[in-house]
């Protein structure tokens, strides 16, 4: 099975940007989402979690898209990072992002009035599924590139 993950970077950039924007929207602005979260007392936690995870995902995707074209597949040096390290990091961030999107889905189901934000009600489960896809593809690359793990099923190509 041929595996690669660079083609997912624009999607990760978009997912990170979306999460970051929703984090800002729930943390500041006095909008409908802000008022709903204020009733639960979760504005600050929402802001920190979504902006941190979304910002990290967006920032790394942008950095790798601009600078990561010729990175080595596997290296013991810290800098520049290897493709294996980048795939591991991106898989971890996608996993965290999927958890955060699941929380948003739970709030949409649980909190009265949250489902009225239709964009969020559609976007949250879709983003969760896309994060799962990003996680799986990056994990494949991680396993394909790690020389300490024997695999006869995965073959990496740029």
């Amino acid at each position, binding site marked *: 099975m041929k595996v690669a993950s660079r083609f997912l970077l624009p999607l990760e950039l978009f997912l990170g940007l979306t999460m970051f924007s929703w984090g800002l929207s729930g943390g500041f602005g006095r909008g409908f989402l802000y008022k709903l979260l204020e009733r*639960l007392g*979760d504005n*600050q*936690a*929402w802001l920190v*979690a979504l902006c941190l995870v979304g910002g990290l995902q967006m920032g790394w995707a942008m950095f790798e898209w601009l600078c990561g074209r010729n990175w080595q597949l596997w290296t013991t040096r810290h800098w520049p990072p290897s493709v294996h390290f980048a795939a591991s990091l991106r898989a971890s961030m996608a*996993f*965290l992002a*999927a*958890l*955060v999107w*699941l*929380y948003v889905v*739970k709030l949409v*189901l*649980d909190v009265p009035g949250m489902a009225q934000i239709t964009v969020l009600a559609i976007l949250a489960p879709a983003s969760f599924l896309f994060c799962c896809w990003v*996680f*799986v593809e990056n*994990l*494949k690359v991680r*396993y*394909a590139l790690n020389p300490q*793990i*024997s*695999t*006869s*099923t*995965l073959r990496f190509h740029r």
Partner: protein
Amino acid sequence: MRSILRFLQAPSASIASGFLLASVPLAALAAEQVVRVLEPGTVRFWVTLGAVQLLWLFGYGASSLPAWAKWRDGTVHDRLTIVSGVITSGIAGNIGYYGGYYMVGLAEIACFISTGLAGWGGDKFLTPLLGRVVTAFDAILGRGGDGGGGKP
């Protein structure tokens, strides 16, 4: 009957049963307090309960995916060893949410993240750790045993 009595007289069994008996009233008190706060019967309680179980299962599935999908070479036995971690992941995941939210008072989103992470790390880290603890206890008590293990 005699063999049961002999087993209970063994040093390891008496230490373990002592701990178990001492923990019963504490566990009952903690459970009573938690149930009082949880308000079972409300919609929010059931949605949260379902979401927490989904979360730790998601975390566990993410950690055992490479073995199930055969991305790494190994025997069927290697793949089956990850099944043993389901219970550990489940307990760790539930503690991650309910312990964090009701006992420690963390924000709910932090408890959600910790539940997923506990489900992911339950089998990966806790099972080998518990195996080491059991091996150490067996060594102290002078008993043999492989002490379990973790993922391949």
